[in-house]
């Protein structure tokens, strides 16, 4: 995996970092991307809009070679008005692009989180732990 739905929710957990400067994590050294078709889930997508960071998603998708999302986001506070076309694009970007091997890097402290076989390692070193 590592789908953009997940990556859009992740920031650097290090004690040296704070939101929003630790978000989004940048993709780096991506070796394998898989496009895996998934069943379109309109209800889920409409419900998820209020948790989405549009600009970050667009930026991260571009890092993976996808530029389908428009620059201007729809009104995420009115999910029922978002067009089906946008939702279908979101479905593809959020759920059908999977990073298998590579890394995500914190824009602030540069901590490298490795992704191996679709599972990212977000464990911290001792000096990065929040007490």
């Amino acid at each position, binding site marked *: *995996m*590592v*789908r953009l*739905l*997940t990556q859009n*929710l*992740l*920031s*650097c*957990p290090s*004690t040296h970092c704070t*939101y*929003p400067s*630790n*978000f989004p994590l940048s993709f780096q050294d991506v070796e394998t991307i898989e496009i*895996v*078709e*998934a*069943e379109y*889930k309109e*209800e*889920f997508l409409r*419900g*998820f809009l209020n*948790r989405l*960071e549009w600009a970050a998603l667009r930026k991260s998708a571009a890092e993976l070679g996808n530029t389908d999302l428009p620059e201007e986001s729809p009104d995420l506070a009115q999910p029922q008005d978002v067009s089906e076309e946008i939702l279908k694009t979101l479905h593809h970007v959020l*759920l059908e692009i999977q990073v298998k091997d590579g890394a995500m890097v914190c824009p602030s402290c540069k901590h*490298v989180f*490795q992704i*191996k*076989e*679709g*599972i*990212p*390692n*977000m*464990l*911290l*070193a*001792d*000096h990065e*732990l*929040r*007490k």
Partner: protein
Amino acid sequence: MKFLLVCSQGSPETTGNLGEFRIPELNSIAALFGFEINYPDPIDTTRPYMVIELAGEKEARLLGSRAISVKHIWEYWADARTYDDLHTIIKPRNDLYDPYTGPSTTWKFTVSGFARNINLVDQVAVINSFRYLGFQGDIKLKNPQCEVGVFEEYVRRTDKEKGRELNDMRWVWMGRKICDTKRNMIDVFDLKKRAYIGTTSMEAEVSLLMANQALAAPGKLIYDPFAGTGSMLLTSAAFGALTMGSDIDGRQMRGKKTNIGDSAAQYGIKDKIVDCVVFDVTQHPYRRGEIFDAIVTDPPYGVRAGAKRLGRKEKNGQPYVPKPVPGYENVYSHELPDYVPATLPWEMTEVIESLITYALFLLRPGGRLVFFLPTDNLHYSDIDIPVIPGMTLISNSSQDYGKWARRLITMEKSRSVSVEEEKGVEGLEGLDRGIRRLVLGESGGSGTSTPKEEGEKRPGHAGFRDRYFAHFEDPEAAVKSD
């Protein structure tokens, strides 16, 4: 309208008695679909037949579309102490049976027993005694339009009584079949048939009950912070939710020859397992709260899998300073790809308190936290469940193993609590990144619980690991008097 539920009284694959799980499950399904359920009779989950009240057949079918602890659902006709009483009630109730006795309605009549096998001769005798119902249509054994059921309830015989002719029927029940349930999912999700399992995988029946407690459904995002082999992710996904898992140890999520993805593919839900991520939940990377509709988990009790968190015992109260790898000036061990950070044991009371507090942060208002709490039966009492403002206790069901039990706790986040409002409230400080906790150096970090004040009660899950390996012996009894 009254309905008769024929409930499970245990299955061979599931350990321990699940009687306490029945009512919470029914209530959860009712909450999920937004209908009311009432229990007109005193509740006794040692008995398999139970009457409930629902608005109508539609609600009964909704119940059946999710129920695991119920085998099938019937329109309630009558119940009585003896067959004579049953006939007295049923005979004049043409309103119940006339609609189905016409010549074009296919029908079937079943006689079955609990704690007793009814032999064919006796079954036929019962069916003949109901001849007055006057069925004119054809008998159809598979999917008739009307199936009438009579259930004889007995008390389980002791070994001495087996084989004796006893006229000891306890009660008899009658109804018309509405629907089956989802109980067959237990077989589909049987661990013995699953592509990828581990020693900590949750048994199928219980993981399905947990998904119902969590109100898993399409449109929802559900999280397990101790995902392990993904059992909870799979059943919540089976009910339509999208799921996410994390674990401080990636080995169980990754698997060797097979992994969670293979199990998910087996059940046709591969696209519903969104991601698995390796991290310590107390050092979680989520950028905001109120992400998940539910959190469903079985935290490690320290028996087969030790609860641990990132950290290292401080030397002389000095924080850890990274040093370069010997011989290499600018390379630090924590930057190398195979670096495994130091971890410390994490005591059960802290695990539970942290879990509930993180749930408060990560759950959407109205969202549920469903988790198992292991307890030493000798020391357990209801006050052991931490009370965290903003989280309401919904249910507490014990799966008993004799000296110990695990309790399935369901909590719901109040709809009126929002993270923004809670800023400045003591106890939730720093919740976006961590929970205020004891300095690692002081707590001892040896796996034993923090010493309590004299007279303060230790909860039943305190130091659970040590209690488990001491076979739950009463420590007082073991103390020698000098």
